[in-house]
């Protein structure tokens, strides 16, 4: 499995290296996308709010990349024309998605480096950058698990991908990307609690404010929620695989 993941990631990186503009886009876009939210707080809020919104929106941006990379992984391969080639190879669907997750992690680390750099140039720094970096690394795993579930859904109901961006925004808002979910009314909190990103953002904000002890419970619940999505995703993936093999619909979208 690891060898297969290695070659799939190698393939994606090689193809991406042929398109120079992608690297420029990835380096600059996150800063431009999240800076309106961060700069808004800089103008009208406290410094700690700026940092909290930065970590929240950056983690949300990570989620968007996973939803595109992992969530839409099958769709991308189909558009390339190589989906069936991958399906008939020894690579399992779950291995394929893990490979996409790893590839997305590499790209996310790349874009995060530039994003932090640009914000530092603009006077917004992050406290406790090393623990934040560790958080980003491990968040890759949990968001991959969450994206698994979405990818399985997208393979089952193909057109869900059309509202991928919409779903990302809803997830971002309800996970507290710009607002502490503690301020939400109970009916909104209920939605927040089933989104793994909510816990990651909460942990990130605690790290920024040097409240490390508050993270233990969040981390435990994050594991429970994320692994639940992983197992649900794996189950759904197997079901959809069998269904698609019966219907012969690998190439239809």
């Amino acid at each position: 499995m690891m060898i297969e993941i290695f070659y799939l990631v190698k393939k994606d990186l090689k193809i991406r290296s042929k398109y120079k503009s992608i690297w420029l886009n990835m380096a600059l876009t996150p800063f431009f996308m999240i800076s309106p939210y961060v700069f808004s707080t800089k103008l009208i809020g406290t410094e700690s709010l700026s940092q909290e919104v930065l970590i929240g929106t950056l983690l949300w941006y990570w989620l968007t990349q996973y939803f595109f990379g992992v969530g839409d992984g099958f769709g991308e391969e189909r558009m390339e024309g190589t989906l069936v080639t991958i399906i008939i190879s020894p690579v399992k669907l779950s291995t394929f998605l893990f490979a996409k997750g790893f590839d997305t992690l590499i790209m996310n680390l790349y874009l995060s480096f530039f994003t932090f750099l640009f914000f530092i140039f603009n006077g917004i720094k992050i406290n406790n950058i090393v623990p934040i970096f560790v958080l980003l690394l491990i968040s890759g795993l949990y968001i991959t698990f969450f994206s698994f579930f979405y990818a399985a859904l997208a393979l089952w109901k193909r057109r869900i991908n059309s509202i991928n961006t919409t779903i990302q925004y809803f997830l971002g808002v309800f996970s507290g990307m710009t607002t502490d979910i503690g301020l939400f009314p109970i009916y909104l909190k209920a939605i927040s609690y089933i989104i793994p990103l909510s816990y990651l953002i909460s942990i990130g904000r605690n790290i920024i404010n040097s409240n490390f002890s508050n993270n233990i419970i969040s981390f435990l619940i994050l594991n429970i929620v994320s692994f639940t999505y992983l197992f649900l995703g794996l189950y759904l993936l197997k079901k959809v695989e069998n269904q698609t093999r019966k219907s012969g619909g690998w190439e239809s979208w």
Partner: protein
Amino acid sequence: MIKVNEVSKSFNNSKVLNGISYEIKDGDFVLITGENGAGKSTLLKILIGLLIPDSGDVQIDNFNVKKDWKKISKEIGVVMSNERSLYWKLSGRENLDIFGGIYGVKRNKKKEKIIELLRYFNLIDHIDKPVENYSTGMRKKLMLCKALIHEPKTLFIDEALNGLDPKATEEMIFYLNKLNENGLTIIMISHILHGFNDDIKIMHLKDGKIDFIKRMKEIKNNSNGDIYSYYSNILSEGEK
């Protein structure tokens, strides 16, 4: 050995395959023919596990294709009809490197195998060019290389000769004949029938059933060498 046992398949209440049973022995070269819509591609997809039949089963070397299709995938090579099944932005070498890796070919062996295959199929001069710059014939040959990189026992081919010029067609058929002579089992869908070795078997499908199975030699003898006239007669008279 491939055993096909009473395989049936329908799509939208339309029966595409109806109780197909057949055994393909190691070293056989089976050409699957038939009109458009006869069920050829459907049968091939069932043989490689991409499609699950409504009833019946397929066994390859005692593995059940429905359950063990991922295990079997390392023992078979597949050439689909779609030219886009390669990574167009990557070179021939890079494509074979990636697919060789995915199919578990060891690194040193893979390097040798890539050069060997590309040389054999006359692609060595284009080894580092991106596939998007290849001609149709070159892409089809590279697809064959990709299917052979892991030294499978059986090769499945879906209409790989479509769109090739006469010389490229002749070349491909020559390679396939040679591979079969060296012991590779080949199951191939094709509308092109000339140029193949005499001992290959032709399985003609009609209305989802096997219409006949004959050796090429027998067909050539019955048709005075004009295979296509023979087929025209079959289609118009419905000979069994």
